[in-house]
């Protein structure tokens, strides 16, 4: 094993090398830094790197801890004390987080080393990372395509071998969809499973932090470190955390998988549909029983999501006022002018659009018609899942109706972009967990683009969907394929 081979490894493989003292945490960081220098010029996954601080942590890293000495990339909306936390927005230019998010403390307690912050759609609002106010991130499989979003930087880093694993956030699919579009694993935990303390809030009733990794086992290892109750987040659940890695190695005999008929409808790319059909057959051949189920309110999920998410965002983003932190306009004529211009100059177009929509649906005279009605339909969607989970242990669907698309292809029409969340946002509305794992390729213009299989699980049943995803992954070859930009260096 030479230094140039290290970036291709997953977390589980690194652990054994580190523990056998075949490689030191500092050598690992060095190999990663070299790889980032070569690859990230083209991919653009990172917004900031702090190898100086990471080196110090690596020096005293205890490799016998669960994630001892493993560098982890962090979506730049999660606070790491002393580091920038831009949320990919001009309004947070120059800001440095004064404290650590709970997940950062937990990662460090498990021995992991946060070393860099990854790009995202501004304030996590988007499905392609094109809404970043700072830079473009490219899909490592095809540089003219988006990496998905909003955790596009985290996904692109893992898929291009410039991160061994990363944290992202998922409000309507922002971990699972970029994982699908870049051919990696992404897990959105149950609402309340992972503390959001120190996460810059977008939509507080939907946001969750979760892992993006090369393998399902790696996702389980990160979950072991970050899951659990936090008194500093009143929405975090005080429930025991199982060992997710130990739970992986069960076979699928007796497992019931629901196939929601509403999820295999029009608008799905035919190559995605073919891959999902094949995945369902494969899971069946592994011993899982496939049952047809119905989630009758599925077609309303995107509408509910965009009312509730924008309403919550408009309230959460009121804090960006140019007084306590972040960007501030020059020479305002009074306080209202100060607020209006600070926010005009600091926020990008998608954030502005959502603030307007969210403010409108909460405004006097429209609250009942939009916001309250959406909350009621949300309850119907939640009940759909409760009923279906009486018959099935987990549900199967595509993660995204389409593979990675070209830059600019969907930006002109926000509604078309919003509809890419169609299979993912219901899970956030219902508070359940979901995972995306690669299940094939689409061939477009002679390029291969990954396709993701989504598994949705009952609340707090992450162990089950990890187990199913692991069984699928280990009995297929998809996870062994790697993006061309990483492959050339793996074989160099």
């Amino acid at each position, binding site marked *: 094993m030479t230094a140039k081979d290290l970036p291709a490894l997953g977390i589980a493989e690194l652990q054994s090398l580190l523990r056998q003292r075949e490689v030191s945490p500092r050598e690992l960081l060095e190999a990663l830094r070299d790889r980032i220098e070569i690859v990230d010029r083209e991919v653009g996954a990172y917004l900031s790197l702090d190898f100086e601080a990471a080196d110090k942590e690596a020096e005293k890293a205890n490799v016998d801890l669960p994630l001892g000495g493993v560098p982890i990339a962090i979506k730049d909306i999660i606070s790491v004390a002393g580091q920038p936390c831009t949320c990919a927005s001009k309004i947070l230019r120059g800001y*440095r987080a004064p404290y650590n998010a709970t997940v950062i403390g937990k990662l460090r307690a498990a021995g992991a080393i946060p070393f860099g912050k990854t790009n995202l759609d501004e304030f996590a609002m988007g499905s392609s990372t094109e809404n970043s106010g700072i830079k473009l991130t490219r899909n490592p499989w095809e540089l003219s395509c988006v990496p998905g979003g909003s955790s596009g930087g985290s996904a692109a880093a893992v898929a291009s071998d410039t991160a061994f694993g990363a944290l992202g956030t998922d409000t309507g699919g922002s971990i699972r969809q970029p994982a699908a579009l870049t051919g990696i694993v992404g897990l959105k935990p149950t609402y309340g499973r992972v503390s959001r303390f120190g996460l810059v809030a977008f939509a507080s009733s939907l946001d969750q932090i979760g892992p993006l990794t090369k393998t399902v086992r790696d996702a389980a290892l990160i979950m072991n470190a970050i899951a659990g109750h936090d008194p500093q987040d009143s929405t975090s659940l005080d429930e025991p955390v199982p060992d997710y890695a130990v739970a992986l190695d069960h076979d699928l005999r007796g497992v019931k998988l629901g196939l929601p008929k509403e999820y295999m409808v029009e608008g799905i790319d035919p190559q995605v549909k073919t891959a999902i059909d094949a995945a369902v057959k494969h899971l069946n051949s592994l011993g899982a029983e496939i049952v047809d189920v119905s989630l009758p309110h599925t*077609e309303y999920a995107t*509408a509910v999501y965009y009312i509730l998410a924008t309403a919550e965002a408009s309230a959460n983003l009121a804090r960006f006022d140019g007084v306590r932190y972040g960007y501030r306009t020059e020479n305002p004529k009074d306080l209202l002018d*100060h607020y209006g211009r600070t926010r005009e100059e600091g926020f990008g177009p998608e954030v502005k659009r959502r603030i307007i929509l969210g403010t409108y649906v909460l*405004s006097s005279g429209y609250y009942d018609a939009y916001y309250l009605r959406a909350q009621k339909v949300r309850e119907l969607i939640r009940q759909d899942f409760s009923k279906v989970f009486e018959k099935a242990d987990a549900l199967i669907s595509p993660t995204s109706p389409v593979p990675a698309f070209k830059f600019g292809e969907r930006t002109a029409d926000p509604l078309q972009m*919003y509809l890419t969340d169609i299979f993912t946002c219901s899970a956030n509305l219902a508070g*359940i967990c979901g995972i995306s794992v690669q299940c094939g390729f689409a061939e477009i213009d002679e390029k291969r683009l990954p396709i993701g299989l989504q598994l949705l699980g009952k609340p707090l049943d992450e162990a089950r969907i990890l187990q199913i995803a692991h069984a699928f992954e280990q009995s297929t070859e998809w996870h062994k394929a790697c993006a061309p930009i990483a492959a050339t260096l793996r074989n160099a």
Partner: protein
Amino acid sequence: MARDSDLDVAYVARLARLNLTKAETELFQKQLGDVLKYVEKLRELNVSGVEAAAHGVPIFNVFREDAPRDWFTAEEALSNAPRQTDGLFIVPKVVE
């Protein structure tokens, strides 16, 4: 539910303390009009008797000990302020 024509982007922008250019106002008027037309579909459903879900996992009344603990110093709290003096945030004059 209201029709999309009820949305007055310029008015809502004032409520949101967010200045918009004329071009942005017109663009958002059109784009958000389309989004509001799309969400009209929620009117098809009968939601009478359905309780509103504030979030997916029902948890209520979360309390913790009201105990003092170490947190930011004034200096740390001001460390990101664009303008500050004497331990205070500076804002434009609000009273004459």
